[in-house]
C-alpha cells in the first residue's frame, strides 16, 4: 500500500484583517471590496517559503525516524534561490540525512500536487521507502490589487511511504494547459493576473470539472463516491457553479480557508488536504485537485490509521495559534514592499562566507550540537572539548539535535537599540530540556507576555538578508509557548 503516512501544516501566527488592507488601499481600487472579507495569514518578517516548509515538515515528521526518509520534494513558486537547491536547505532544517534525493518543484501552482504525485510514484516504484513532500508559498501582490487581498501565506507537508498509511493513493489524473491566468517573469516581484472573469469562467469553471470527470471516468467512479473534494478556488460564484456542475454536495466540499488564511498558491491543495485529514474517518475517499497551468487530481482513501495518527499542530492547531497584525504598513515593511529605514546600525556589511557556512551547516541549518559520550552533556554550538567543568573529555562527542527539543527561558530582554523589522528585538538565554543552552533571538511573541522559565520551542527562520549579494541566511529562533502543555 502506498500513500500518506503522516502530514502536517503550518500557518503563520500573524493574521491581517482584510478590512485593514481595504481601509488603507480601497480608495484606489474600490472594486476590491468584494474580496475584503475575513483575514489573511501573513508570514512574519523572518519567515518565507523555506521557513514555513521546515515548520510544516517538522510537524509532519514528529515522531518519525529521520533515517527512514529517503528524500525531500519541495514545491513553491516563491523560492528564495534560483540556483542553490532550496529543498537542500529545507532538508537540512527538518533534520534529514545528507545521503538523500531532494528536488525543487516550481513554476505553476499545481507544483504542490505534482511533487506529491512524484513522491507517491517513486515510493510505488520502490525507488524510496519514504519521502517528505513540502509545499509552501508566500506570494507578493501589489498594494491595492485584488491579489493582495486574496493571497495568504502557509505551508503543508506530507510523508509518503508504504508503512502505517493513513490515506492510500487510489489514482490520479492530470491536465496541462499553458493558461496565463497568473504569471511572474524572471525579474518580477509581484503577481500579475489577466481578467478575473476569464480566470473564473474559463479557467476554474472548465478545468476543475474536466480533471474530476477525467479521473472518475478512468477509475469508474462518480462524484457521489467521494466523501471530500479538495479544490482551491477562491471565487465563491465559481465554486457554486463547479459544485453544481459536478454535483458536489455541501458536506463534501472542503473549506478553502479563504476567510481564515487566503489562497496559499502551491501549498493550498496540500493545506486543504491536511485540514481534511485532521477530521477524516477511516474508509473515506478524498479527492485533491490543484489548479494552475492545468490541474492534477489525486484520489486517496483513508485507512484505520487516519484517526490514530494526527499531526502535533496541523492546520487546525495553526489556525488556533494566531495574533492580529493590526497595521497595514507593518505588513508592507515585513514583505519589503515599503523600504523602511533600519538605521545606520543595520548597514554593516557582514557578507556570507560560503566556506564557513559549509563547515557550520549542521549547526546553522539543523541546529545540531554535540553530546559528550563520557558525561552525557548536550552542548551548543558543537564542541570538541566537553564544557562540563569536571569532565573536559576531548573528541568524545556525538551529534545531537536541539531543533526538536523544548527549552525554557533563563533570561530575556526586548531591545530597542538593535536594528529590527519588529522592534523591540527580543532575545534571551534558552536552556534545553536535557541540557544545553544558547542565546537565541525570539520570534512570534510579545515582550509583555514573557517570563523566566516560560517554555519555548525552536523555529527555523530567516536570520539575515544581504540585499547587496542577494543572500538569505537562516538560523533558529525560540518561540515562547504561552500555554504550558
Amino acid at each position, binding site marked *: 500500500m502506498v500513500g500518506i503516512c503522516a502530514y502536517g501544516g503550518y500557518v503563520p501566527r500573524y493574521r491581517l484583517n482584510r478590512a485593514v488592507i481595504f481601509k488603507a488601499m480601497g480608495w484606489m481600487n474600490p472594486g476590491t471590496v468584494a474580496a475584503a472579507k475575513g483575514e489573511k495569514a501573513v508570514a512574519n518578517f523572518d519567515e518565507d517559503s523555506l521557513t514555513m516548509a521546515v515548520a510544516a515538515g517538522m510537524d509532519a515528521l514528529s515522531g518519525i525516524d529521520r533515517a527512514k526518509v529517503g528524500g525531500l520534494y519541495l514545491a513553491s513558486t516563491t523560492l528564495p534561490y534560483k540556483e542553490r537547491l532550496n529543498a537542500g536547505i529545507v532538508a537540512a532544517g527538518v533534520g534529514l540525512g545528507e545521503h538523500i534525493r531532494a528536488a525543487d518543484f516550481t513554476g505553476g501552482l499545481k507544483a504542490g500536487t505534482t511533487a506529491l504525485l512524484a513522491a507517491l510514484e517513486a515510493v510505488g516504484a520502490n525507488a524510496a521507502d519514504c519521502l517528505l513532500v513540502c509545499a509552501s508559498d508566500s506570494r507578493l501582490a501589489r498594494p491595492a490589487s485584488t491579489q493582495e487581498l486574496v493571497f495568504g501565506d502557509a505551508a503543508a507537508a506530507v510523508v509518503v511511504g508504504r508503512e502505517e498509511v493513513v490515506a492510500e493513493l487510489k489514482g490520479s489524473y492530470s491536465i496541462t494547459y499553458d493558461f496565463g491566468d497568473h504569471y511572474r517573469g524572471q525579474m518580477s516581484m509581484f503577481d500579475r493576473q489577466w481578467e478575473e472573469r476569464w480566470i473564473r469562467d474559463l479557467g476554474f469553471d472548465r478545468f476543475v470539472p474536466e480533471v474530476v470527470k477525467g479521473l472518475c471516468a478512468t477509475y469508474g467512479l462518480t462524484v457521489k463516491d467521494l466523501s471530500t473534494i479538495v479544490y482551491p478556488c477562491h471565487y465563491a460564484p465559481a465554486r457554486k457553479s463547479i459544485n453544481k456542475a459536478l454535483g458536489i454536495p455541501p458536506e463534501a466540499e472542503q473549506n478553502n480557508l479563504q476567510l481564515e488564511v487566503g489562497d496559499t498558491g502551491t501549498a493550498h491543495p496540500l493545506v486543504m488536504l491536511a485540514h481534511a485529514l485532521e477530521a477524516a474517518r477511516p474508509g473515506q475517499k478524498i479527492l485533491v485537485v490543484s489548479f494552475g497551468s492545468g490541474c492534477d487530481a489525486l484520489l486517496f482513501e483513508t485507512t484505520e490509521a487516519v484517526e490514530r495518527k494526527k499531526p502535533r499542530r496541523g492546520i487546525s492547531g495553526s489556525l488556533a495559534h494566531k495574533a492580529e497584525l493590526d497595521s497595514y504598513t507593518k505588513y508592507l515593511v515585513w514583505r519589503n514592499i515599503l523600504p523602511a529605514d533600519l538605521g545606520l*546600525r543595520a548597514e554593516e556589511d557582514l557578507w556570507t562566507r560560503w566556506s564557513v557556512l559549509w563547515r557550520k551547516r549542521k549547526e546553522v541549518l539543523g541546529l545540531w550540537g554535540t553530546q559528550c559520550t563520557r558525561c552525557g552533556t548536550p*552542548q*551548543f554550538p558543537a564542541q570538541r572539548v566537553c564544557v562540563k567543568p569536571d569532565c573536559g573529555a576531548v573528541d568524545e562527542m556525538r551529534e545531537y539535535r536541539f531543533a526538536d527539543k523544548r527549552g525554557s527561558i533563563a533570561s530575556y*530582554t*526586548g531591545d*530597542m*537599540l538593535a536594528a529590527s523589522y519588529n522592534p523591540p528585538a527580543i532575545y534571551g538565554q534558552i536552556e534545553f530540556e536535557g541540557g544545553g543552552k544558547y542565546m537565541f*533571538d525570539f520570534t512570534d511573541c510579545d515582550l509583555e507576555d514573557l517570563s523566566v522559565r516560560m517554555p519555548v520551542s525552536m523555529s527555523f527562520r530567516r536570520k539575515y538578508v544581504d540585499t547587496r549579494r542577494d543572500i538569505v541566511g537562516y538560523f533558529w529562533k525560540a518561540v515562547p509557548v504561552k500555554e504550558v502543555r
Partner: protein
Amino acid sequence: MPTGIRNKVAIIGMGCTRFGERWESGAEDLMVEAFVECLADAGIEKKDIQAAYLGTHFDEVNVGKAALPLALTLKLPYIPVTRTENYCATATEAFRAACYSVASGVYDIVLALGVEKLKDTGYAGLPGGAGRGVVNFLMEANRTAPGCFAQLATAYSARWGIPMDTIKRAMAHISAKSHANGAKNPKAHLRTVVTEEQVMAAPMVAYPLGLFDCCGVSDGAAAAIVTTPEIARSLKRNQDIVMVKALQIAVSSGEEASYTSWDGAHFVTTRRASAKAYEEAGIQDPRKELSMMEVHDCFSITELVTYEDLHISPKGGACQDVMSGFYDLNGEIPCQVDGGLKCYGHPIGASGLRMIYAMYEQLLERVPPERKVKNARLGLTHNLGGVPWSNVAAVAIIGRE
C-alpha cells in the same frame, strides 16, 4: 610559589583626557593629551620610557591594528610597543602588561596607554556585529550591549524573587549617584544631576534598562607610567607613592554560555578574579578594608550585581546596600567617585586606566573637597568585558605605600 604583584610596582605618573563626544579630536589627539599629562606627572622624559603597551578595542572603527598608532603618534624611538586587546578590560591589560614588564626586571620604566575613538560610527551605542566575526554572525542573536546586560535583571529578579520594581529603583539610585559624582568632575562626559524618578521615567532601551541605566559612549584616552618602588622613591622624594597591590583577571571558560549550572544573574569571572585579588593584596574583608572603588557600570544592573560578585554586598542583598547609601560618595565604600562609566564615559580601550586614574588621584589627595573620599588608602577597580555569559573580568587594587 608565585608571590603576586603586591608592592612590586609603583605608579609614578598618570594622565587622562576629558571623556566625551570629542568631535574635533581624533585618536591621535587623545593619545597625545593623556600622554603629556602623564609624562609631566611622572617627572621623566620620553627617552626614559623603555617599553610601552597600547590598549585599544574596536580597531575596525578606531585607530587600526597593532601597536603602531601609539609609536607613530608619540614618536616613540624604536622601543618595544605591543597592543593589548581584551574587550573592556583592554586598558587594564595594557596596565597589567606594563606592571609585569617592570616586576620581571626586564624593564624599569614602562608606559601603558589606552585609547578609544567611538563617536565616528554615525549611530548611538557601540559599533555592532562586525567585530563578532564571520562565524558568530551566522548564529548569534541580533543583540546589542544593553540587551545582553539587561538580561542580568530578568534573571536576577527570577533568581532572588525580587520584584522588578525594586530592582528598577535600586538601579535608579545607582545611576543618580553616578550622575551626582560625575556632575562634580570637569573631565566627565555627562555632567547633569538627575533624580531617581527621572532615571525610572526614561525611555526604554532594552527592557528593563532605560536610557539612564546605560553608560555614555565616549571618546577618550588614559595613561600610566609604572616603575620599580626604588626608582619611584628616588623620583618622588617626600611624596606619597602609589603601589600596585593586586592585578587579577578571569576569563569565561564556556561554562556560563553552554552549561546549565549558571543562573544568568551574576558574573562567575568577577567572583573568581576579585577573590584572587583580595588574596594577592592581603585583604581579609573587602567590605571593611576597601576605601573606594570604580566598577564596570556599563549598565546600572552590572554595577548592582558586581557589588555582590566583589564579595562586598551579600548575595541577593545588593539592593538594600544601594538604597542605604553604602556606595554613595559619603557612604562606607564610595563607588564611581569620578562618575564611573555612566558619567565619566566609556571609551572601551581607555576605561581600565581611567578607573585606576580615579583611584590614583584620590590616593594622592589631588581632588577638590566636594568629591574627595575620606581617608582613601586602598582603591579597587573592576573591568568587565564581553557579555554576562562570556566575558573577561579584570580587578586591580592600588594603594598608598
